[in-house]
C-alpha cells in the first residue's frame, strides 16, 4: 500500500502490557494523525515510553494490536518495524559512542542483498546524504570525531540525524527537549516543523509544554496506561481531566 491511498497511520487497539504487578499500558486504544505532528503527554509513569517500546517492537505486548498504515505490526521484530517506516529516538538519547559521527549515520543505510552488504560502507552518495543531514543539524564540522566526544546537545542532534538517515516516514521522539538548552529546543522544534512540512509524521513524548504547544497539531494525554483525552493544543490546555491527571486535584 502507498501512503497516498490512506491517511491511516500508527494505531493501537486494546494494547496491554504489564510488568510484574504494575500495568504500564492498560488496553490503550489510540490512533495518531498521519502526516501531522502528534504529541503524547502525561505524568511520569503513565506508560508513554512503554507504549513507544511496544509500538517499535522492543517489548512484546501482553494483548492487543498495533497497526501501521493498516498493516499489523504487533510483536514484529524492531528491525522489521523500522524497515516498515517507523523511526525512533530514545529517552536519554542513544548514539553509538565508539563510532565516528559520520558512521553513526551510515549505519542507518539499508543494504539489500549480499553484494550491497559486503560493499564498502564508504559510498559517496550516502556520505553526501549523511553530510546533508549533519549540516541541517549544524554538526557537520564534527564528522570525524567519535560520538562519545560530543556534548550532550550535539549527541541529541546526532541521534536525530541518524534516525532521519534511515528515511522513515513516521518518527517517534522520546523527550527530544530533555536536558538541552532553550536555543537548542528552538532548533529541534524548527527542524520538526520543517520535516513535517516535507511530509514526515511525528509522534513526540515531551514534558516541555511550551515546545509541545508550539509545534504540535494533535495531542494525546496518557494517564495510568490509557488515553484520557486528545485534541488540538488549545482544547487540551483547558481540559479539566488533564489538569487533574497532572496536578492530582
Amino acid at each position, binding site marked *: 500500500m502507498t501512503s497516498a491511498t490512506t491517511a491511516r497511520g500508527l494505531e493501537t487497539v486494546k494494547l496491554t502490557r504489564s510488568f510484574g504487578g504494575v500495568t504500564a499500558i492498560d488496553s490503550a486504544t489510540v490512533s495518531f494523525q498521519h502526516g501531522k505532528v502528534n504529541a503524547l503527554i502525561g505524568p511520569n509513569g503513565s506508560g508513554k515510553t512503554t507504549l513507544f517500546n511496544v509500538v517499535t517492537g522492543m517489548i512484546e505486548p501482553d494483548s492487543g494490536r498495533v497497526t501501521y498504515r493498516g498493516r499489523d505490526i504487533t510483536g514484529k*521484530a524492531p*528491525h522489521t518495524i523500522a524497515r516498515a517506516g517507523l523511526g525512533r529516538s530514545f529517552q536519554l538519547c542513544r548514539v553509538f*559512542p*565508539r563510532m565516528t559521527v559520520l558512521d553513526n549515520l551510515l549505519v542507518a543505510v539499508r543494504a539489500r542483498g549480499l553484494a550491497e552488504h559486503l560493499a564498502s*560502507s564508504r559510498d559517496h552518495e550516502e556520505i553526501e546524504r549523511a553530510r546533508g543531514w549533519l549540516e541541517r543539524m549544524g554538526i557537520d564540522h564534527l564528522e570525524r570525531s567519535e560520538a562519545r*566526544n560530543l556534548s550532550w546537545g550535539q549527541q541529541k542532534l546526532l541521534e536525530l540525524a541518524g534516525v532521519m538517515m534511515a528515511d522513515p516516514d513516521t518518527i517517534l521522539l522520546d523527550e527530544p527537549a530533555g536536558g538541552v538548552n532553550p536555543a537548542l529546543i528552538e532548533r529541534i522544534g524548527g527542524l520538526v516543523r520543517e520535516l513535517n512540512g516535507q511530509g514526515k509524521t511525528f509522534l513526540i513524548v515531551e514534558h516541555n509544554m511550551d515546545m509541545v504547544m508550539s509545534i504540535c497539531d494533535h495531542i494525546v494525554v496518557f494517564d495510568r496506561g490509557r488515553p484520557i483525552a486528545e485534541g488540538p493544543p488549545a482544547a487540551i490546555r483547558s481540559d479539566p481531566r488533564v489538569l487533574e491527571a497532572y496536578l492530582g486535584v
Partner: protein
Amino acid sequence: MLRLAALALGAGLVLSFPALAPNPYMVTVGIGILNYAVLATAWNFVGGFTGYISLGHGGLAGLGAYATGLLVTAAGLPSFAALLAGAVMVAALAVPIGFAALRVRGASFVIVSIALVLILLLVFQSWDSFTGGSRGLAVPRPFPGMPRAEHHTTFFFLFAGLLAAVLLVWWLIDRSHFGLGLKAIREDEDKSESLGIPTFAFKLVAFVVSAAFTALGGGLYALWFGDLDPVFQFSVLTGSNIVLMALLGGVRHLFGPLLGALVVGAGLEYFKLEYGDTPLHLVATGLLLGVVVMFMPDGVIPALSNLYDRLFAPATASIREVSAADLAAKGDEPTEVRR
C-alpha cells in the same frame, strides 16, 4: 602508502622466518604462534565486531581438527579436501549452536560457549568407536615421506597463508555495510535494531564465519600435528588464551589479535621456562587476563595511541571534558575518565 610499505615489510619478515630460523624447533614455535594468530583473528569476527565474548572457540578449533582427521581416516578424503569439507561441516553445525546462543543477548552466549567445549569433550571421549576416544586419533600426513624439518617449513607457509586469508576477510568485513552493522550491535544493540539492522541474523552470520575460519585453523593444525586427543583438543584454556590474545592486542584493530598472539605466545613460553614445574603459568594467564579486562579492555594498541594523544595531542582533550560528565550520566563513560 606508509601502511602498504609496513605491510609488505611484515609479510616479508614472516615469509623469510623459516629460512632464518636456526633449527626446525624454532619453525615449530613460529607455527604455534601463527596458529594462535589465526584462531584469535577468527575469534575476532564475533568478539571484535559484535562484542559477544566466546570462550568456546577452542572447542570449535578442536571440532575442525577432528572433522578433518576423521574425514581423512574414516571417509578417505584427500587431506586438504577434508580440511575444507571439515570447515564447512563445522560452519553448518555453528548455525544451530548460534541459534540457541544468540537469540537472547549476553549471558546465555557465554554460557553456551563454555558448555560447548565441555559437551564436545564428553562426546568425543565417550563415542570412542567413532572418534577413537582416549586412544586418540592419528591423522596421516598430507605429504608422506617428507622429512620432518621440511614438513614444518611447508606448514609454516600454509599457516601464514591461512592467516593472510583470515586477515583479508576481516578487513573486507570491517569496511563493509555488514561490518558497520556488526559494530553498531557492539555499541548498542537496541539502537541498531531500531535503525533497521536485523541484529540476530547479523550476529549469526558473523558467528558462522568465525566458526568456519576457526575450524580451518584447527583442521590445518590436525594435518600438521598428526595426533588428536579429546583432552587436549577440547580445552577451555585454549579458548581463554584466544580471548586473552585478541583482547590484549585490541579487538577493534585488524592486527590486534596477531599482536596479542605474539605477546601471549612468547609470554607463555617465558613462564614455562622460568617457573617450569609449577602451574604458576595459570596464575600469570589469569592475572594478565584480569588486568587487560579491568584496565585496557580495548587492548594495547588503543591504550598506547591514547597515551600518545594525551602526550602529544592535548587538543582532543577539550571536547572530552565537556562530554565526560554527560556520558557518565548515561553510565557509559569512556575509559579515559575512569582512570
